[in-house]
């Protein structure tokens, strides 16, 4: 089956990012296709490379990056939600006159149309949030 995933909550604060990751990983290992993972609301905080969790805990951000690399997974962060919360890639940092960017490896910033498209293209859109 072809799935799209939506992640609506921030890492560590809420379980939804963990659940979304476990679901996505399990689906890929079973041979299903993940069309896209879309990060919205505080979910965009899953995409900052400045995250530094304690060493004896899981690294939520790196875990997504590694999954993306292994399966060529499309991780998309909503641009409007990201800009509100200070998640920028190099282009956006330049455009907004900021002196730093913080998007983690494997993530890309794009618009809400990518969420709608993910819903249209997939057999199921699975939402993880509050």
């Amino acid at each position, binding site marked *: 089956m072809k799935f799209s995933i*939506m992640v609506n909550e921030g890492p560590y604060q809420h379980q939804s990012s963990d659940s979304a990751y476990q679901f996505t990983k399990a689906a890929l290992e079973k041979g299903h296709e993940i069309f896209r993972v879309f990060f*919205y*609301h505080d979910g965009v905080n899953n995409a900052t490379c400045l995250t530094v969790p304690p060493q004896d805990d899981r690294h939520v951000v790196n875990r997504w990056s590694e999954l993306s690399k292994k399966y060529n997974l499309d991780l998309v962060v909503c641009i*409007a*939600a990201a800009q509100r919360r200070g998640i920028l890639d190099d282009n956006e940092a330049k455009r907004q006159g900021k002196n730093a960017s913080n998007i983690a490896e494997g993530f890309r910033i794009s*618009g*809400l*149309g990518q*969420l*709608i*498209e993910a*819903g*249209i*293209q997939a057999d199921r*859109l699975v*939402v993880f*949030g*509050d």
Partner: protein
Amino acid sequence: MDGEGGVIKKFLYVNRKAPYGTIYALESLEVVLIGAAFEQDVSLVFIDDGVYQLKKGQQTTVDSGIGVKDFSKTYRALEGYDVEKLYVDKKSMEMRGLSTSDLNVDVEVLDDAQMADLMAQQDIILSF
């Protein structure tokens, strides 16, 4: 913008939260507005505290309220985006002492069974 290869799915946006306590209501509305360009079959429901999103007379400016942008008028603009199917949960509205005359927009009021039917008909349900 055309739907993806002519595919038209039934999208339901479920709004469950009060408008300003969290950002869910505002960011839900942003999805609805962008999504309208895809010419899908869109419905919105307002349930639980979500019915407050449609309340008339919201005052949120610094002078009169909490100093947050009032986006309640945007619901009235949805018609211009061909988003015309707005539903309110009857119990949620009545439990909060509201009636349709307290709301900014024309809505259809649904009881539990009708709400369940509406949800069962959908391809995509986005819950905010």
